[in-house]
């Protein structure tokens, strides 16, 4: 038996060069230091993405977009065996994916892993983050219950406020002037076809860059002499740790999904008023609250416009940080970048908590 496996392996190896890959993987090392824990968050994000793809395909088996959307999700949740679990896993894993992507981004930021030669890793990562959020936004509408309906209605007001192109663009996305079954159909196409098609090549590029450049070590560690820098082999050591993290992630997700099954509200009714206390998903809470504050200070379209401008500017600065703080030495610029990061994190956390507090 072992002989047979060895000969099959040899046959495949001759043709695909597995040994070379293995040699490369063994040569690759991952730095070990007191902040090594943060290296796992990219992998955890990837794991939740795989769960999303997997449970997403399962939901696709019964989900029907368009006028039947709510009824099909009701059937999945209440009639199909374990449908509630698959749907709950998809929702929970979506939230956990957004959370781990944020943790991954901030850890990369504060470890200054965006510096040369890893700028493209940072930029592709930012694109993945934005698509992840759009995945969340488009997926949220698909059950077409009350919450989904109003969240989408309110969410689409943001692009709608953009000057000139805002209204026609929003109408295109909405498939009309009001959120309805045509919107569900469009969001469905975006959610299951367009966005995965955009996401996957960027993800492959992102992962290829990680393989090419390896994990960045933190500046304080890089300053030490080479002999004092510790590392472990990527294969099998780091990979095993990674898989252990995936197992933990799976367990956390499974516990959340089965103990707190995702709710399905009343069907969306355009003639009914919005339920009290309606609010966006937690990852849009900060943006929601900033717009609200701006709207209170500067009433009318000015406030909304100002809020969007501030957010967009912040995002652009955030994305361009490798160009400002790209050198490996830690000087004044590096400190400024860190303060900017702390400011951004602070604003996100404070406005999110604020948003929940005033509900």
């Amino acid at each position: 038996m072992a002989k047979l496996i060895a000969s099959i392996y040899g046959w495949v190896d001759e043709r695909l060069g597995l040994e070379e890959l293995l040699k490369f993987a063994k040569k690759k090392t991952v730095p070990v230091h007191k902040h090594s824990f943060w290296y796992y968050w990219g992998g955890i994000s990837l794991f939740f993405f795989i769960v999303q793809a997997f449970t997403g395909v399962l939901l696709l088996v019964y989900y029907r977009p368009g006028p039947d959307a709510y009824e099909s999700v009701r059937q999945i949740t209440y009639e199909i065996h374990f449908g509630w679990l698959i749907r709950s896993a998809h929702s929970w894993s979506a939230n956990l994916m957004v959370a781990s992507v944020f943790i991954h981004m901030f850890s990369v930021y504060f470890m200054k892993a965006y510096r040369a030669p890893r700028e493209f890793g940072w930029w592709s990562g930012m694109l993945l983050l934005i698509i992840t959020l759009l995945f969340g936004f488009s997926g949220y509408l698909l059950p077409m219950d009350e919450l989904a309906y109003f969240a989408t209605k309110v969410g689409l007001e943001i692009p709608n406020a953009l000057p000139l192109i805002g209204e026609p663009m929003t109408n295109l996305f909405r498939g009309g002037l009001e959120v309805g079954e045509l919107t569900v159909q469009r969001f469905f196409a975006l959610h299951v076809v367009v966005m995965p098609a955009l996401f996957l090549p960027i993800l492959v590029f992102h992962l290829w860059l990680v393989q090419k450049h390896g994990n960045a070590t933190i500046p304080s560690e890089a300053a030490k002499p080479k002999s004092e820098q510790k590392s472990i082999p990527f294969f099998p050591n780091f990979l095993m740790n990674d898989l252990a993290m995936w197992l933990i992630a799976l367990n956390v997700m499974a516990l959340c999904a089965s103990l707190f099954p995702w709710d399905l509200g009343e069907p969306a009714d355009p003639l009914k008023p919005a339920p009290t206390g309606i609010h966006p998903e937690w990852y849009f809470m900060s943006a929601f609250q900033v717009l609200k504050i701006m709207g209170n200070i500067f009433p009318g379209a000015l406030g909304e416009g100002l809020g969007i401008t501030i957010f967009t500017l912040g995002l652009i600065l955030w994305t361009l940080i490798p160009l400002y703080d790209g050198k490996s030495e830690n000087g004044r610029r590096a400190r400024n970048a860190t303060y900017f990061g702390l400011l951004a994190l602070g604003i996100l956390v404070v406005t999110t908590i604020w948003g929940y507090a005033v509900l």
Partner: protein
Amino acid sequence: MNKAISRINGADAGAGDLMSRRTFAQILFTGVGLCYAGAIGYPIYRYLASPIERAKETTAVSEVTLPDAAKLEPGAAMMFKFGTKPALLIHHQDGTWSAMEAVCTHLACTVQYQAEENRIYCACHGGVYDVKTGAAIAGPPPKGLKAFNVKVQDGAVIVSKA
């Protein structure tokens, strides 16, 4: 044998131990892995199999009542569903009734009643069945259509498994 394994693995297993640490760990991990595979696989299987289970419940019917079907003119036929499968109810010129599964025994096409030829015909490969019994008369069908019992009662037709 065990001694050899434990020596190779560098485990501090004594001569009396039944298995080495490595074997134990392998069995443990395989077991836990199988538990995970089951815990994930079972819900997914049941999820995907839901419509099959429902269809099987529907197939379990043994009797179908067709209200108002007694109004069917002599020489006419109608299609109805018996469980999940299409079925054929024929009111013959002589006033008798027949009902049978409308699924061709050859390759499962749905058959039709042809009044002018007085036969049941399958358009896919030209199979012909007897209108009264459903027996295979011509063409490729290996056996006759599954026939049902028919009872007329208060204007309704009750079809039941033979």
